[in-house]
């Protein structure tokens, strides 16, 4: 594996700069999906289900059809059947019958779209919906996973209540029925998660032996909340057709990857889809490839033969805008006297929502095994379907939850074993090529590419002055302080995507980027590596993004913190392709052999006498030479969409295209160590985070300000889960009562910790030439767990078993044992109470 020095010398990489999209965002020129206007644009509004689970018994749209200004009404039966998809590995993934439909005559949660109306303006569309005669027949429903698992409990779908693993390898998972017994529930006892039959499980090492050798065995249960993504831009979408081609503007996290998704939903050829998404108002996992609701304006636009803008309201975004599934976890953990985690038995019940299987519970197991390195581990998971809004991956799906489960548990073990919580974090921290579950079929474990978590803990502890704070005497009065330390980790990189750029005859680099612009700035940051590899100034680079008509290569989805890792490798691969072509052109033009030449300072030149060509001249020669040089030939290992893009760019200059084929041994993860101090008033239950520090191990930092933005922004997302964000459901009617921001409570600027500092260990990852790993997701788990640990330190270890911890939970926990409000402690394991 050539060291990175040979491939590129970091010059722009690692330095702050202004991203090319920021100016338009500050002047209001940036157009997000709902800002588009088109001639003759119709307004589209949704008719959504008022019930948690129902079937449309009667539907009569004639009155609405006849209203002046109503152009078209779309119902579920007019949707094309979603086509099967082909995975990158070539395997066909059959369209799942349980997948989320854009419209449905059997809505599976309140707010599920049933039909859509397109009219001349919003008011007419609303009046038309109110004129539609529709009757819903209520069906059995359930909003709490444990209720569905009770013997005789209701099933969220007519077909079943749990996602069961595939019967035979190669088949796909299916929804089935799984009920626990009364004995399972009784065996758990109060405040403990029952552990009935699991849907899926794995294990390594001898867990029972581990418990036997343990000096301390803890048995804890914890519930994390359902939290809606609540991106500030809802998933409004504009669609119009021209000559059989669909033009669609919507927010997404991955521009190019959204095209095949739309093609699958509409059963269309990807070539006939032009997708526009230059600016997206936040995604956080909720717009991985936009969402199936984008086909509603697409189909209405074709039916009404006019552009259609679907305006999704904030309340509708609460229903179809994705949310992180709540996990209820039961952790049995055995520790050695030094606090080493000898054995971990993790049982997780997941509130899956009504549609596709979410993987939070499974990933929680995987991240648990990596983050805490248990010597023996067993994981069991039960993804239970409920009649609640659509779920989706949200920043560190499963990763945040397992940190919230295990962070306070480690701190409690430290206190029981009379150890420093920092030391218990440290002794269990992954290092180097740390093993990570689940075990492969042959029983061996995968390994991380690298891990420098101990360095992060030490550096963070020093910045946070952990020792000094720990030494402070405990507070006696009504205001209590608490400190917490915790770690978080997540997947931070994939491989195998394509880089593409053109050296124009003017000598500029026109970089085509299929990555979405959801705010992480990674679409631009990765190109800094390319500029360094090509040794050109940043001003010479121009990035084309956000519009598939600009011939974008196949890039990764901007989610799972993978972009900086995957796309910097792809950019580097393309740069190497360009360097090879440049020295080839120089040799062909000036004689000699390519090896005599080198690229640098905007020129390709012969070593020794320095005779050479400028990039512009080389580009013009490339056009004359044709073939692979100017894109008329394309390497066959790149993705089909990249090949289409190259074909379109042929002849425009020196076309550099390559698939990231750099080797990588192991899986790329990034880690964060977080430290928090809270000041809590036991009389009012209110608290604030006075000090917070997050130290990252994410390899090389490519763009410090953007890196800091993720460290602060994603920590705040975790802090929101620990402090204020959750759902409230009226279980009798199965309806949410918390629908507005002042009821679901996303954190505000005043919720920022007063002193917030961050740092990065900055040791490059050996398994990637650029050395950079993603940072988007690890901070959430670390921050959430650090704040929970600080609260537990201030309030006492058994003060709460659920997040978020709000004033009522603090007051109830602080109530003296015999206090009459003691009964008021929000017990139980339902997340939506």
């Amino acid at each position, binding site marked *: 594996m050539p060291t990175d020095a040979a491939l590129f010398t970091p010059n722009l990489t690692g330095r702050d700069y202004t991203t090319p999209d920021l100016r338009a965002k500050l002047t209001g020129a940036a157009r997000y999906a709902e800002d588009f206007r088109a001639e003759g644009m119709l307004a589209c509004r949704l008719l959504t289900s008022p019930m948690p689970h129902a079937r449309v018994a009667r539907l009569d749209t004639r009155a609405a059809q006849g209203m002046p200004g109503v152009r078209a009404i779309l119902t579920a039966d007019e949707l094309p059947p979603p086509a099967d998809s082909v995975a990158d590995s070539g395997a066909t993934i059959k369209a799942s019958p349980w997948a989320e439909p854009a419209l449905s005559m059997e809505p599976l949660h309140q707010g599920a779209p049933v039909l859509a109306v397109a009219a001349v303006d919003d008011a007419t569309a609303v009046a038309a919906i109110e004129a539609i005669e529709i009757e819903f027949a209520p069906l059995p429903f359930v909003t709490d996973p444990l209720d569905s698992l009770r013997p005789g409990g209701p099933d969220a779908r007519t077909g079943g209540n749990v996602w069961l693993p595939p019967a035979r390898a190669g088949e796909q998972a299916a929804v089935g029925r799984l009920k626990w017994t009364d004995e399972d529930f009784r065996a758990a006892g109060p405040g403990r998660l029952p552990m009935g039959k699991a849907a899926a499980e794995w294990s390594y090492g001898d867990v029972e032996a581990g418990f036997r050798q343990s000096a301390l065995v803890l048995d804890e249960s914890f519930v994390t909340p359902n939290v809606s993504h609540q991106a500030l831009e809802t998933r409004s979408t504009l669609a119009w057709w021209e000559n059989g081609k669909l033009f669609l503007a919507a927010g997404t996290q991955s521009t190019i990857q959204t095209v095949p998704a739309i093609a699958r939903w509409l059963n269309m050829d990807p070539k006939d889809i032009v997708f526009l998404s230059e600016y997206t108002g936040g995604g956080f996992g909720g717009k991985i490839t936009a969402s199936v609701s984008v086909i509603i304006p697409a189909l209405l636009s074709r039916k009404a033969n006019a552009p259609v803008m679907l305006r999704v309201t904030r309340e509708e975004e609460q229903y179809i805008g994705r949310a992180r599934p709540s996990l209820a976890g039961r952790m049995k953990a055995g520790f050695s006297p030094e606090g080493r985690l000898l054995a971990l038995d993790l049982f997780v019940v997941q509130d899956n929502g009504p549609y596709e299987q979410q993987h939070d519970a499974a990933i929680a197991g995987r991240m648990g095994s990596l983050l805490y390195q248990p010597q023996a581990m067993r994981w069991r998971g039960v993804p239970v379907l409920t009649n609640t809004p659509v779920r989706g991956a949200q920043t560190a799906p499963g990763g945040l939850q397992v940190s919230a489960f295990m962070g306070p548990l480690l701190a409690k073990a430290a206190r029981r074993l009379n150890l420093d919580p920092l030391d218990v974090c440290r002794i269990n921290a992954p290092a180097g090529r740390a093993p990570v579950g689940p075990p492969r079929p042959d029983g061996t474990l995968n390994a991380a590419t690298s891990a420098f978590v101990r360095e992060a803990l030490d550096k963070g502890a020093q910045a946070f002055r952990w020792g000094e704070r720990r030494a402070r005497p405990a507070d006696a009065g009504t205001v209590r302080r608490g400190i917490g330390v915790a770690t978080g980790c997540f997947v931070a990189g994939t491989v195998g995507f394509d880089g593409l750029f053109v050296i124009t005859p003017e000598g500029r680099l026109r970089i085509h980027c299929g990555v979405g612009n959801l705010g992480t700035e990674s679409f631009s940051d990765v190109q800094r590596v390319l500029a360094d590899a090509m040794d050109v100034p940043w001003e010479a680079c121009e990035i084309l993004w956000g519009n598939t008509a600009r011939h974008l290569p196949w890039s990764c989805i901007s989610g799972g913190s993978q972009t900086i890792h995957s796309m910097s490798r792809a950019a580097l691969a393309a740069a190497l392709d360009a360097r090879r072509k440049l020295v080839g052109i120089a040799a062909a033009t000036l004689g000699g052999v390519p090896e005599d030449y080198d690229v640098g300072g905007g020129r390709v030149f012969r070593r020794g006498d320095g005779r050479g060509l400028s990039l512009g001249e080389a580009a013009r020669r490339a056009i004359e030479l044709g073939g692979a040089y100017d894109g008329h030939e394309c390497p066959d290992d790149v993705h089909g969409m990249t090949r289409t893009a190259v074909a379109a760019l042929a002849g425009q200059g020196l076309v550099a295209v390559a698939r990231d084929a750099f080797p990588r041994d192991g899986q790329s993860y990034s880690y964060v160590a977080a430290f928090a101090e809270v000041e809590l008033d036991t009389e009012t239950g209110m608290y604030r*985070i006075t000090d917070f520090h997050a130290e990252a191990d994410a390899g090389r930092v490519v763009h410090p300000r953007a890196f800091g933005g993720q460290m602060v922004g994603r920590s705040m997302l975790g802090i929101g889960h620990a402090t204020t964000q959750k759902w409230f459901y009226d279980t009798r009617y199965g309806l949410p009562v*918390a629908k507005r921001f002042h009821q679901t409570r996303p954190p505000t600027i005043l919720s920022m910790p007063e002193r917030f500092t961050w740092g990065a260990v900055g040791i490059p990852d050996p398994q990637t030439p650029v050395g950079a790993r993603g940072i988007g997701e690890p901070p959430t788990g670390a921050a959430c767990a650090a704040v929970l640990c600080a609260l537990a330190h201030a309030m006492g270890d058994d003060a709460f078993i659920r997040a978020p911890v709000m004033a009522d939970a603090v007051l109830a926990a602080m109530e003296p044992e015999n206090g009459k409000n003691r009964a008021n402690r929000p017990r139980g394991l339902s997340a939506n109470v």
Partner: protein
Amino acid sequence: MATVRDGMPHFDLYQPDSVEDALALLDRLGRGAHMDDGTDGPLRAWVLAGGLDCLERFKDRIRRPSAVVDLARVGALRGVRREGDETVIGPMTTLAEVARHPDIRERFGLLAEAAAQVASPQIRNQGTLGGNLSQDARCWYYRGGWPCYRAGGNICYAAAPGAMNREHAVFGARRCVAVSPSDTAPALVALEARLVIRNAARTRMVAAEDYFLGPETDITRLTVLEPDDLLVEIRIPPTWAGTRFHFEKVRDRPVWDFALASIAAAMRQTGDRIDQARLVLGSVAARPWRLPQVEAALAGRPREEAADAADLAVRGAVPLAHNGYKVTLARNLARRAILGQPPGAPSLAMGASGLMGAPDPSPARQTGKEAS
């Protein structure tokens, strides 16, 4: 009949520029028009002040007035002036103006502090004092369009066993357990303010405490205002001017959120002996909840030893499944008001409110060497 919860229905908009015109309009429009099928006509007229309480209900299509009377142009209803030793505040004065007004900050800091902690800066810039006092209940069943008693239906969903009533009443509930969410109302009740209400026929003045209705009297409204009434003046007597005030608002987020519980207290002392006190809890009942029994127990006692009087604050409390903590809060807030402790660690806030600073948070610096 499908339900849509977004899209402001049409209404006729009137913009009178005098109180008299406004009253004439309300009188003409205020009366219900009988529909031919015997039901009462649509809600005819709605008074619009800052718009923060009503525009969202029109957009939710839960309230659909056919006419709206916008008071933005009625200059007479705005401003703060002194009449003799009474301070008179126009109901259309924005909360920001009330929070900043020198006379109010100096003589009635309690009201200024309450106004400063309402919702968010923009809402304080638009929202009016009259609107904050006259706003409707924020029970998430009622505001979500559920057909409960307060909406003219036949049940209180929040009071049912197992219902979500974390933010509901622990005092004075009668069938409906919603709370009065106003922050300025407890302050004005503590200050013994009086409110002048006019309609086309006549003018009447009510004590701030009597401006608010409990569900036992009329379950469908929080104030005595009739459809053709207009709140025209808020008069604060000098009784409590310059005495010792204590305002504290407990809420989950330090901005936007309504109070879980709040307290507004005024206390007159000679030396450290309490002569007279007024303590009023907010967001624990359908109206500002005075604590007369505590006030009585405080009279004449030295402040430091009077803290136990706070235990009387919880008499008559009836907690539901999820709001028992409000009983603890009522006692603790009363205790802090008596002892005059500074509000403790405000919830996740950098300083309790604009008025009281807090240590300056240093920027999130990247410590350690710049990653090369």
